[in-house]
């Protein structure tokens, strides 16, 4: 009797387990399939541009000469965005999680989340119509006083539609992503570790340095990577804000271009080899994003032993 009852345990629970594990497996496979499909599409469509004679590519000097300035432009814009947004985002997140009174914290968190809900075209319009105009006096000042730095070399753009303006607009766009994720991570810091630091005689800031930030480090890196993903791929805001042109070292002159904006601006009128060229540019962006994410993973796992997950 006992033997049969041990063996005949096929209740609804078993079926539920199977359906659930099957569903999760399918979801996991689907992600891989979609990623692989996108990669395959990009490679196949890009091949004509990669193999075409140099003279037929836009600019007449081959695909590499065409792509590298906009790769650099993309990285510059994303770097500006992250350099501005990361410290502010971490500061705001810390303020919300550890310093602000509870009511202010929830209100502020809500406002920050709202920033993420604004469509990118609105940011682009704001950047082009308002920010660029307002910020151009500052560019003139930079050109006059810090023009010896190559990145602030004059003459500054009169319209203010520069890669720096685009980077600033991007920083506002990635700010809520980094802030929200960092805030969630900061709130998850174990009370035990915070109290351990305080009981040793740590001030609030020392407690944050000792317990909160080390605990949150992998999370902060992930948050920055998500922000970077948005900054690299952002199309509309850059297309509207940046008056694009050839690659220039100066951030306050018009010029430079990003991959995503380049594709968006040229795709509607492209045909034949031009389409392939733009898709190849998309492939390059895909590879950059992939590479950046792999580096981030590597940074996170390098310190796994000390992550607190063991």
């Amino acid at each position, binding site marked *: 009797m006992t033997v049969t009852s041990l063996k005949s345990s096929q209740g609804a629970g078993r079926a539920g387990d199977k359906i659930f594990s099957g569903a999760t497996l399918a979801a996991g496979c689907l992600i891989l399939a979609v990623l692989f499909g996108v990669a395959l599409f990009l490679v196949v469509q890009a091949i004509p541009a990669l193999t075409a004679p140099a003279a037929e590519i836009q600019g007449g000097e081959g695909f590499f000469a065409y792509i590298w300035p906009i790769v650099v432009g993309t990285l510059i814009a994303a770097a500006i965005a992250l350099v501005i947004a990361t410290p502010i985002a971490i500061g705001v997140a810390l303020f919300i999680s550890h310093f602000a009174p509870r009511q202010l914290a929830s209100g502020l968190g809500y406002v920050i989340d709202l920033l993420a809900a604004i469509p990118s075209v609105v940011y682009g319009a704001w950047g082009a119509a308002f920010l660029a105009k307002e910020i151009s006096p500052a560019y003139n000042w930079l050109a006059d006083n810090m023009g010896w730095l190559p990145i602030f070399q004059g003459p500054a753009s009169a319209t203010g539609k520069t890669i720096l303006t685009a980077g600033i607009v991007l920083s506002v766009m990635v700010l809520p992503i980094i802030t929200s994720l960092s805030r969630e991570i900061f709130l998850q810091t*174990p009370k035990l570790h915070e109290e*351990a630091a305080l*009981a040793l*005689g740590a001030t609030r800031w*020392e407690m944050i340095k*000792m317990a909160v930030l*080390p605990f949150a480090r992998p999370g902060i890196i992930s948050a920055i990577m998500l922000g970077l993903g948005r900054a690299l791929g952002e199309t509309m805001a850059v297309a509207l804000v940046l008056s694009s042109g050839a690659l220039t070292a100066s951030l306050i002159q018009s010029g430079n271009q990003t991959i995503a904006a380049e594709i968006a601006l040229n795709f509607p009128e492209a045909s034949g080899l031009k389409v392939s060229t733009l898709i190849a540019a998309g492939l390059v962006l895909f590879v950059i994003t992939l590479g950046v994410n792999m580096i981030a993973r590597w940074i996170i796992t390098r*310190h796994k032993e*000390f*992550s607190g997950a063991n």
Partner: protein
Amino acid sequence: MSKRIDVKDLNVYYGNFLAVEDVSINIEAKSVTAFIGPSGCGKSTFLRTLNRMHEVLPGARVEGEVLLDGDNLYGPGVDPVTVRSQIGMVFQRPNPFPTMSIRDNVLAGVKLNNQKISKGEADALVERSLQGANLWNEVKDRLEKPGSGLSGGQQQRLCIARAIAVEPQVILMDEPCSALDPISTLAVEDLINELKDQYTVVIVTHNMQQAARVSDRTAFFNIAGTGKPGKLIEFADTTTIFNNPGQKATEDYVSGRFG
């Protein structure tokens, strides 16, 4: 390197809720004092007021005085950060910093307030503190490994090493053995016996045998019912509390008739 604590008429509130009522107690230097009592009687809350750790919870406040060798911890201008560097604390669950090595855990408190310490001094302090916590022989070959890789009992002794590295006057322990197995508990109890040569130790425990084993004086806290404040019922030598208590409630509790 140890000071006495005198508490006068202390009330502890969470918001408007009176959690602990009217406690007066004198804790001798270089002794072990145990707080016992049923769950929720306020003994942990009271312990936390001795180094102002209760202030971590918003709305928590006290009325009355806590004197550390005559200096009121709640006097005007007293910084809780300074109070906590003088009165260390060991918690219920071992809480070494998971992102730090064993060595860095021991040095965590010493490096606060931008204090600089040479490598030689740091090495000596790490060894001295870990010796003081009876942990040195077990970890001396892996000081650079994470503290979270140790067993629960070792982690708790690491936390004690971290607390004594800053050379406090008093060490508070909030049920330090309740998450540990009997062997580790024994190791920590032995350590408490050694610590009282240099430090004033106050320990909260649920385990009456533990209080009987480690403490010189015992305070019994009780609560009249849910929602009522906790009170200090009796405070006397440990032998008196366990063998010849003055109060009926104490006798009922230590003999296992309730709680």
